[in-house]
């Protein structure tokens, strides 16, 4: 997994993949990834976010620059944020997962069925948490087995999961919204620590764990290696198949956690939860600076990417902008954010 895990990346992407990896080759140490060019890359995002906050403060004044509003943004970001952190691992490992929204929906439905809720009330509300995470992990396992051992292209395998998981969710729920009535569950997720709700804290916790996992552990280093050059990783003694499998399970677990957050927020489980989360998550990850071809990933970038998206939505809502205008501007800002980020990346690479 050492030096030359570079040029061959993947035949899919040309320019961006061929450009940065040489610098990645030398930084097999995750420390360098954080201290060196990582900061440069994130700087673009921070600038974009700051500009956005500036616009928000200028147009909406204290309605934007307000603690309540900051919490509103974080609450909105929490579920998709957790999914995006899981997605960062899969994409860094050279994969993609289109089924996250569907897995989230299935988890939310499965853990709010009458049977699960009865059990949660009789035994302990943690049953629901176990159910959601287990369903997520199970879907991730199916994805992972198909991709790693079945040789199915990630795009296709997860596309199939996208269709079937939501279908199964619809069958289980009979296409109805399932209302949650488990006091313990509500009490836990509705609780606040220093004015911050549990889902937001969970998001922060998942982000920290994700960062440590990617930057400070063998698991993280292997993920980067597998994504950069699977063949070299295999020669270096990494069990590429098993590692790929684990990445999808990890993302499935993240979907389960996000499902719990959404259940707590809406007090319902529904087959319509998590619509288009796959696109939001992939966009946030790519904006964050993770290479779509794999071999480079950044949790800090992903978190910033998610925050940019949600802050954008918030600023639009505050300013009462029309729907079509918002869509147009969103697209433009995505492009600007990526361009900024690339520019900073190049500058810090050459220095």
């Amino acid at each position: 997994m050492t030096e030359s895990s570079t040029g061959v990346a993947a035949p899919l992407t040309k320019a961006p993949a061929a450009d940065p990896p040489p610098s990645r080759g030398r930084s097999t140490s995750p420390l360098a990834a954080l201290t060196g060019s990582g900061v440069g890359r994130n700087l673009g995002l921070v600038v974009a976010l700051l500009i956005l906050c500036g616009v928000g403060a200028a147009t909406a004044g204290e309605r934007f620059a307000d603690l309540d509003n900051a919490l509103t943004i974080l609450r909105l970001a929490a579920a998709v944020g957790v999914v995006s952190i899981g997605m960062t691992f899969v994409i860094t490992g050279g994969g993609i997962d289109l089924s996250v929204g569907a897995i989230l929906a299935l988890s939310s439905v499965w853990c709010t069925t009458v049977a699960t809720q009865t059990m949660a009330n009789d035994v302990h509300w943690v049953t629901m948490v176990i159910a959601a995470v287990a369903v997520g992990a199970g879907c991730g396992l199916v994805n992972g087995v198909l991709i790693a051992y079945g040789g199915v292209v990630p795009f296709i395998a997860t596309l199939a999961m996208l269709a079937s998981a939501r279908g199964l969710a619809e069958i289980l729920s009979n296409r109805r919204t399932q209302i949650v009535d488990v006091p313990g569950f509500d009490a836990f997720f509705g609780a606040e620590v220093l004015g911050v709700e549990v889902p937001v804290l969970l998001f922060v916790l998942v982000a920290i764990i994700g960062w440590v996992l990617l930057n400070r552990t063998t698991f993280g280093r292997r993920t980067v290696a597998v994504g950069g050059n699977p063949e070299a990783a295999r020669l270096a003694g990494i069990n590429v198949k098993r590692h790929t499998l684990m990445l999808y399970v990890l993302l499935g677990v993240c979907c389960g956690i996000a499902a719990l957050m959404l259940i707590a927020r809406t007090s319902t489980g529904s087959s319509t939860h998590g619509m288009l989360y796959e696109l939001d998550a992939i966009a946030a990850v790519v904006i964050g600076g993770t290479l779509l071809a794999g071999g480079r990933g950044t949790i800090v970038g992903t978190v910033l990417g998610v925050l940019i998206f949600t802050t954008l939505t918030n600023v639009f809502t505050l300013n009462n902008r029309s729907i079509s205008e918002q869509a147009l501007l969103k697209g433009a800002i995505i492009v600007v954010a990526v361009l900024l980020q690339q520019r900073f990346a190049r500058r810090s690479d050459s220095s």
Partner: protein
Amino acid sequence: MRTTTALRGRLAVAATAGLLVVGLAACTGNDTSSGNDNLRGGTDGAAEGSNDEEGDTVVIGFSAPAADHGWMASITESAQVVADSYGDVELRIAEGTNEVNLQISQVETFINDGVDAIVLLPFDGAALTPIALEAMEAGIPVINVDREFNDPNAARVTILGDNYGMGVSAGQYICSELEGRADAVVAEIAGIDSLPLTQDRSEGFAEALAECGLEVSNRVAADFTVEGGERAASNLLQAAPEIDAIWNHDDDQGVGVLAAIENAGRDEFFLVGGAGSANAMRSIQAGDGVLRATVVYPSTQAADAIRVARLLAQDKAMADLVEVEVPRQIQLFAPVVTADNVELYLDTAFES
């Protein structure tokens, strides 16, 4: 206590009547007829006068699902038209979204802003209930439109169409048209099956048909879009070679349904629409196709909600009622529109 309420009620009536006379004589500062003439109250005399007089400025937060079909687009548009017609209403419209997570965050923003009232057409009534409760607890009246919350405390006023009644109206019309034909084949093209409103419509339809000994032989579900309607209808026509009547829940998807019928070259049946779009009504008026009637589901519900929100925030009552307060629930009627009465409804219909 009771006497004071009664006295207040009588005073309100007297005041209303008095102002009504004043309002009829002198014009109010607010020109409600600007924009869409059809969005004024039912009886012009009562609508003008006291209640339309300009009061304190009211900030209303508005959130609805994505305008991905004509009916839903008309919801936001007509709300905007009504808000614009009042000089004392500031409407904040949040981005239309089909994602409950985002819609919740929009309501949170309204709460942070301390708006005077929130008009909410939730993507999923149950999912938006907790945040609506929060708004109510924060002292902001929530006006729930179309898709109901699952807790009555989550809304001050609920304005909704009559989904069950729509099904009943459609069923009764088909019964009367197919009178005496016990073997008739009736088909149904539903909207989004997961929504309680679709389930209510289907229930009403089945029960009305049962009254005259008919039943739904073939049922398919679409998704309120033209594309979905086309897909569902072409499957249905393939599955049932001989049909006598079809009820299609929604005129937006009806554009696709009609396209599929055209493509299949079928005309042995008649079609009843739903929701009441302008182009469906024009087609009924022309009488040249299979579409013979449609059942109205008013797309002006949110416009009504804006008016009600303004009344609530300004501590006013409804001019046509004796009550001191705005009522808790307003349910709209679902009439059948045929060639005979289409002119009455064409003006308030939405374009799909």
